[in-house]
């Protein structure tokens, strides 16, 4: 699975993009805990295959997980 971190989340995670092996039963929280164990998820949202996703819902067959910090478009 590809894992992406954007803006402030990228700075907190220490990576912009990773390719890692995952299981369908993994949740976004479990994946982030594995690859960035000291990273706080407070005020961050998860997105799975371009849709906002609960941190504790399994990812299934998804191909991409993104870590979304508070947005500020416009």
């Amino acid at each position, binding site marked *: 699975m590809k894992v992406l971190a954007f*803006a402030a989340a990228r700075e907190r995670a220490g990576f912009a993009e990773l390719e890692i092996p995952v299981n369908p039963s993994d949740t976004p929280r479990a994946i982030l805990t594995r690859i960035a164990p000291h990273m706080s998820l407070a005020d961050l949202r998860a997105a799975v295959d*371009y*849709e*906002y996703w609960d941190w504790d819902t399994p990812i299934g067959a998804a191909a991409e997980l993104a870590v979304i910090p508070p*947005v500020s*478009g*416009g």
Partner: protein
Amino acid sequence: METYIAFTSEPIVSPAAGSAGREIGAELEFHGIVRETEHGAAIAGLQYEAYVPMAEREIARIIAGLNTQWPCETVWFIHRIGWVPVGEPSLYIRIRSSHRQQAFHFCMALIDQLKTDAPIWKRAALPENISQPGRSPLDS
């Protein structure tokens, strides 16, 4: 309803619109322009970043939802990414609808929801960090 959604790293150019249908009574255009201050401090511009594939989907979802409340005929949405200097637009919206109320409500709500849900981020750069005109101080 027709929608046009785009992200561009180039200065925004108002797209050709074609002629409006005979039931169109309102055409509303909005340009969101980078101000010279951010939270009270002078800035040189804003550096925008977007998770484009998801942002396109989120904007489409927001527009579809708003259309059930304020039906419109056509919506154009363009957001600039990368470096946007003070005075240039970072956001462009054009809405055509039968009546002005729909277009005004639609545009306000679209911007409000964009600011809470679309994965787009901006970062301010201070004037003293500018070394070359037209170049983002955040590029280095």
